């Protein structure tokens, strides 16, 4: 706590914060208000801030009015598999960076850092060509592999940083007792790294869950659409059903919001990890 008196500057700062929070939250509040309107109220003029009839059933009917369940399942499968692949590769690599010496370590560290500065659009053209060559276009496997790879550098950095903070003596004691290197990693280091594993897994999941541009490029069959792509495809319809669109958008946010609040303390630390390290 700062020992400022509650003078004018105190109130000015809080008023400014209130204004920024209000403007930031306004679109989501209005999205909620839209999602609870019957269709007839969407384009009434003058527009109203609140629905006249509250169509709570929209959140039920949206699942059958559009293939929302399909999109959600696609996104879940892609994001979970991408996260698992990401973790399976990041854990040993992060551990190697933290604990082992091997030729090319410096190069590996630098190369990972550089990949974080790449613009996905720079990769997109070459990646499209590659996925075409291996016949994975319009296949959700292409998204799993790509998402796992693009969040990998971050996960390795993040986990390496955490592993380094664990006292090495504990592992040495375990290895003295006959544990192998892999055994020490699995039985000693990983159980002690739960917060870091959760945070890096959550980051990989959210990244995959929210990704739009690559999915837009790779996926063409409606049945293969991930949730962001599915929501976007509402816009192409002859008459956009904004109430359903807003309901779907809010449904898409909920899991991320829960995960974000779960790892709030690690949020900033995580997002700047690669850059500051």
């Amino acid at each position, binding site marked *: 706590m700062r*020992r400022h008196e509650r003078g004018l500057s105190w109130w000015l700062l809080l008023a400014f914060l209130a204004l*920024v929070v209000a403007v930031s939250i306004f679109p989501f509040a209005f999205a909620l208000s839209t999602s609870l309107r019957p269709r007839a109220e969407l384009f009434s003029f003058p527009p109203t801030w609140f629905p006249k009839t509250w169509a709570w059933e929209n959140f039920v009917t949206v699942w059958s009015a559009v293939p929302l369940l399909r999109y959600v399942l696609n996104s879940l499968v892609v994001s979970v598999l991408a996260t698992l692949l990401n973790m399976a590769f990041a854990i040993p690599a992060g551990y190697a960076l933290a604990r082992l010496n091997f030729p090319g370590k410096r190069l590996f560290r630098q190369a990972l850092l550089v990949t974080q500065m790449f*613009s*996905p659009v720079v990769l997109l053209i070459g990646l*499209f060509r590659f996925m075409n060559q291996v016949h994975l276009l319009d296949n959700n496997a292409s998204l799993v*592999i790509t998402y796992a790879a693009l969040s990998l*550098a971050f996960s390795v950095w993040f986990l390496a940083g955490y592993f380094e903070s664990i006292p090495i003596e504990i592992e040495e004691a375990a290895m003295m007792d006959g544990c192998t290197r892999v055994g020490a990693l699995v039985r000693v280091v990983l159980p002690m790294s739960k917060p870091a594993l959760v945070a890096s897994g959550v980051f990989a999941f959210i990244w995959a869950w929210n990704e739009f541009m690559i999915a837009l*490029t790779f996926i063409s069959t409606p049945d293969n659409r991930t949730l962001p792509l599915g929501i976007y495809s509402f816009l192409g319809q002859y008459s956009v059903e904004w109430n359903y669109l807003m309901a779907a958008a809010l449904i898409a946010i909920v899991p991320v919001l829960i995960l974000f609040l779960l790892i709030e303390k690690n949020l900033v630390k995580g*997002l700047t990890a690669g*850059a500051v390290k």
Partner: protein
Amino acid sequence: MPRSEPLVGLLFILPTVVLVGVIVFYPIVETALMSFSTVNSLAQREGFAGLANYEALLSDTVFLRVLAQTVFWTVAVVGITTVVSIPVALALNLNFRGRRLARALLIVPWAASLMINAIIWRWILDGQHSIINGTLMRLHLIDQPIIWLGSEQTAWAAIILVGILVSIPFTSFSLLAGLQSVPSELYEAAMVDGAGFWASFWHVTLPLMRPVLIVTTLLNVIYVFNSFPIPWVLTQGSPAYRTDILVTYIYKRAFAEGQFGPAAAMAMLIFVLLLAFSLTFSHITKERAKVGIK
């Protein structure tokens, strides 16, 4: 001390090296090759083209304008976001009732993807009957509905506003973390010296926030530069490429118009531009020790 176990070490990084090699480094090589080739509309290279694709860019007036638009967009969003986020971070650092709620609410635009943010704003601004038009007309601020996303100036205002709103959470949280690393003794010393809030902000807080401000700004530059979904969902570059940024323009050239050669040349240009930034970053890492966030 790290152990010297070369084989185990290499084995442990092997999966990562392969995956990142195939999905990140190989496509860049492929894009680079395409940029020096004639490429058909199926993204297949058909022959060496020298610098033709790059030369084509210089005579592409749309490209040059989109480049200027991208710089404008990035500078405007990052600049305004930073200026807004400093007082937001200062406020979040104060001790007040509802602080947790304010933080939770501020996270929402960050948790929602860029695409979702953009799509909600498209609805808010959509057509004649939008809530914004209705409200402004009721307040008699405008007589006629404005098609906000229909003309260049108002569309840019909208795109930039959305860009700022989605960037504020990360920026202010990051600055807040930097602020919290400023030892409170420094404030107390300033207070004892009789410095007021603004004086201590200007002479103590701001200089100490310099490293975190630099890192946050550079990260924001990269994020904002790459924010494909915002212009894509709001205007798709209309009217006539006037609200495109480089990433959306490259996407259109490649995947809508089948011009993979020139698109690859643009992508390489971006690659070099952002690499220059990443080199700046490696300088910045020297500031690392001073940054509170690890």
